[in-house]
């Protein structure tokens, strides 16, 4: 509407000049009003974005994949609200101590450059940049979600006994990264025992590490994921089971759907303070 007014103002202005040779002040006034209105609209948008906890209007890249887990979480929230008429703003996830969390954020790991690519198949370091989490948010929980795809028994001749199917998935926080002379120093955060005959998403608790990364970002050296046999020996599998790195043959959309995902659950206290 403002643009239309401005155009109309200009047109009137030109016409008057054409026929009378006089300059109208009307067009200028409309333009000034329009400028004021644009400012008002911008102020309104900025206050709304502030309400949403955003510094500026997001301009997302065109082809961004939304993680399936986030879509499912949203759907679950909607279902809970419809069925139980919950008035509270907490996001409750089964099996997670999310407490009063009202915000869920997802992060993909920073993919290493080609020359930095890790050769080991049973140990991968994932580094996440979580600097976008606002300081006002109190972290309640964090999990690393890893997808694993079933291994068909006939393709793996080494799988004979029942115990051969059982593996361990471990998440270690990197305290000191690996150097030329020394292996990395890590601490174990969480372990999951898995059966490689099934496909599923595994959740590993990273809460202590993520809390630390937020308070001291310089200590953020990532997380090491170990995929080992129950007896501690390295995996002998020929095919890849855990989706920790991009496959040479795999397409991008499959990788985007199956790549590891760090999910943080936090409590944005800003709105609560304002309410009080």
């Amino acid at each position, binding site marked *: 509407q403002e643009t239309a007014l401005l155009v109309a103002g200009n047109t009137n202005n030109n016409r008057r000049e054409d026929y009378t040779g006089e300059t109208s002040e009307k067009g200028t006034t409309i333009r000034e009003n329009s400028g004021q209105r644009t400012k008002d609209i911008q102020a309104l948008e900025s206050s709304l974005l502030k309400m949403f906890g955003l510094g500026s209007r997001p301009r*997302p890249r065109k082809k961004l994949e939304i993680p399936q887990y986030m879509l499912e979480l949203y759907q679950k929230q909607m279902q809970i609200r419809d069925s139980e008429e919950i008035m509270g703003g907490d996001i409750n996830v089964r099996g997670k101590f999310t407490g009063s969390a009202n915000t869920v954020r997802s992060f993909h790991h920073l993919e290493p450059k080609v020359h930095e690519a890790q050769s080991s198949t049973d140990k991968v370091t994932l580094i996440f940049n979580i600097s976008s989490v606002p300081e006002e948010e109190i972290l309640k929980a964090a999990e690393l979600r890893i997808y694993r795809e079933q291994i068909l028994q006939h393709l793996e001749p080494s799988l004979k006994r029942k115990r051969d199917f059982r593996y361990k998935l471990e998440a270690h926080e990197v305290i000191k990264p690996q150097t030329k002379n020394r292996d990395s120093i890590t601490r174990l955060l969480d372990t999951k025992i898995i059966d490689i005959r099934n496909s599923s998403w595994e959740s590993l608790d990273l809460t202590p590490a993520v809390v630390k990364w937020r308070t001291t970002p310089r200590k953020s050296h990532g997380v090491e994921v170990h995929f080992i046999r129950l007896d501690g020996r390295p995996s002998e599998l020929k095919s890849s089971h855990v989706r920790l790195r991009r496959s040479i043959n795999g397409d991008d959309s499959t990788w985007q759907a199956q790549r590891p995902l760090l999910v943080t659950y936090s409590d944005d206290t800003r709105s609560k303070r304002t309410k009080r």
Partner: protein
Amino acid sequence: EGKRRSRSHKRKSKEQCRRHALYVDFKDVGWDDWIVAPPGYQAFYCHGDCPFPLADHLNSTNHAIVQTLVNSVNPSAVPKACCIPTELSPISMLYLDEYDKVVLKNYQDMVVEGCGCR
């Protein structure tokens, strides 16, 4: 009698305080590129008169009853009680933030569930 009749006529012509439909469409404000879901939401708004005497369904407070009573005696002394949201609920929003990260957030007090005279 005449005054009462005209008052009741006025009361009928003025709509009582209640919830009205208001759909906020994110596409209309050009925010559909960063808000993944929902496409919009039913926000509702409260509008209407708070007449004397206040009915039970108007969800009023003791103070609102007193204010309305004083207004009915001397309208110039005090205004009527206001028709405002008395019950609100949150909405969940799935969106992309400034850093292209996917965020799911519950925002408090976004939907009017009930209106009343306060």
